[in-house]
């Protein structure tokens, strides 16, 4: 039971990270109609920046703030230099172009930071396990991730629903051309949205750095999960990304934790033993396939033009 609660929380935590990535991806796709494979690279940069700045300043929090800023700036620079020519192009062109960027960033990181990866240590306060309900202990830092992401989600909600920028974002998501025709500075809007996406990705990267990984190519694996999240949630919808991220995080984590034993209990053969871990990693793709059969546009499709 305790194990179950722990895994449940891990699932929520993974969901939170996925949400940060997916929110940026879905915003960028919804508003700029851009498929961005280099999104994972910004996630990676966030982690590397955080590890570097934390080591330099001796403070995790300071390092995180600097990393977030650096990632935002990197995102903006990337948008201005390399992403702008891809707007309005076919998705194939965008896939190829951002694929090239992905290769570039992996190599750049290898050049600057070396091939070995880095570690980021936590302040000792965060390392303690906290008792959330009597008898159940969960690492404080993982709770921080969940709390921080919920705060970001709330901020995003306020931004999108209550500010002028947010209004432009929502308008742009449902009718791109109209927003341009209204005389809004589209270039600036796009740059800001891209920067916001980069910041979200960087935030996810730096938050998970102490407990998961800081290495080259770390963006690739999680990017796929983020794609699954926005397919399930509906491209262009932040709300959809949130719901889908939690679902995907839970199913993936709980699936990996419990399915193998469940399968082995049910089918006691060699084949089951071999296939169990493989099958459990398939669970979210099965979910995605299932949803596609009934709702090909995802759970909360944003109105698209």
């Amino acid at each position, binding site marked *: 039971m305790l194990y179950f609660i722990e895994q449940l929380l891990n699932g929520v935590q993974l969901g939170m990270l996925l949400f940060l990535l997916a929110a940026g991806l879905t915003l960028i796709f919804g508003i700029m109609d851009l498929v961005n494979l280099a999104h994972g690279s910004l996630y990676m940069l966030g982690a590397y920046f955080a590890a570097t700045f934390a080591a330099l300043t001796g403070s995790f929090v300071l390092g995180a703030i600097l990393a977030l800023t650096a990632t935002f700036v990197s995102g903006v620079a990337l948008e201005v230099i390399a992403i702008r020519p891809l707007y309005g192009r076919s998705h194939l062109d965008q896939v190829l172009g951002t694929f090239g960027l992905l290769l*570039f960033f992996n190599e750049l990181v290898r050049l600057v930071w070396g091939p070995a990866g880095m570690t980021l240590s936590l302040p000792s306060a965060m390392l303690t396990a906290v008792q959330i309900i009597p008898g159940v202990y969960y690492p404080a830092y993982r709770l921080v991730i969940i709390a921080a992401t919920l705060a970001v989600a709330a901020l995003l909600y306020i931004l999108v629903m209550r500010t002028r920028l947010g209004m432009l974002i929502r308008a742009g998501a449902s009718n791109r051309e109209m927003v341009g025709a209204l005389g809004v500075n589209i270039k600036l809007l796009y740059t800001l949205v891209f920067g916001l996406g980069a910041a979200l990705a960087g935030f996810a990267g730096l938050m998970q750095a102490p407990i998961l990984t800081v290495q080259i190519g770390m963006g690739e694996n999680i990017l796929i999960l983020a794609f699954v999240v926005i397919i399930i949630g509906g491209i262009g919808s932040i709300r959809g990304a949130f719901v889908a991220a939690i679902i995907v995080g839970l199913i993936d984590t709980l699936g990996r934790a419990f399915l193998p034993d469940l399968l082995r209990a049910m089918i006691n053969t060699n084949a089951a033993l071999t296939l169990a871990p493989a099958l459990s990693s398939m669970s979210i793709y099965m979910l995605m396939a299932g949803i596609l059969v009934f709702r090909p546009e995802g759970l909360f499709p944003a109105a698209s033009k």
Partner: protein
Amino acid sequence: MSVLFERNPRNAVTIGLLVILALIPLYAALTGNTFAMTLFTRVLILAMAAVSLNLIMGYGGMVSFGHAAYLGLGGYAVGILAKEGVGSGFIQWPVAIAVSALFALIVGALSLRTRGVYFIMITLAFAQMVYYVAIGLDRYGGDDGLTIYKRSQFGGLIDLNNKTLFYYLCFALLLASIYLVSRLVNSRFGLAIQGARSNERRMRAIGFPVFRYKLVCFVIAGALCGLAGALLANHTNFISPAMMFWTRSGDLMVMVVLGGLATPFGPLVGTVTYLLLEEALSRVTEYPGLFLGPTLLLVAIYLHGGIAGLLERRAP
């Protein structure tokens, strides 16, 4: 195919390339440069995979981002059967093709009802799923991969361990694939596929049940790529999940686009270019990605916007 006999610069390059490829084993024998054989065998095999991708992506407008999965499935079919004691190529290769075709059928049935970027991401996700399944297969090497000690046996017909023979087999199969695909795309089936790429709404209006044709096309491409996977496993005597990591699918897409979408020899030209470029860069610098990456970006921006623009289906 008769178009090959017109005199123009593109044909000259193609024919020149074919001649060079045919002479590689001779060159390797004369100079002792076995690496050339290895490299170009790989080129031939991946070119075949690229031909299959060009069928659905170039001619059919289906931008599948999960094509490397079929290389993996075909390769794993050979590897798993070999490990379980079934060494005959007469069994391994048809199984490789059948498994790939079946997977393509399932993925296609689920994905082809979506369009645009959904389709791209969904094919990507399904391929990644196969990747993770392969990692989970401890018995067959898991993450580390599996060595194949004996290449597919064809009982005296041909010894695949003979590198020269293997090279020419791959070459022959590549040429056969190019020929078959070129006949396919000009047949009634092929025109239906191309029509669906050009204007799916129009196709439906004149009476084509588009889905079934796209699905069959998707399966054919998957099966052909599965065969390439079987060849690849034999070539490297090794299979691993890395064969189907999604960035490999990206590589395949680059090869197809570089060479020219919807052209018979484009995939071959693109594969040669990309692999040689990769090879050359890795000799010149320790960080090839620093140059390869921006090159891809520039290709995407400047080299073929027009062709890919035609590819992109407009939502009605």
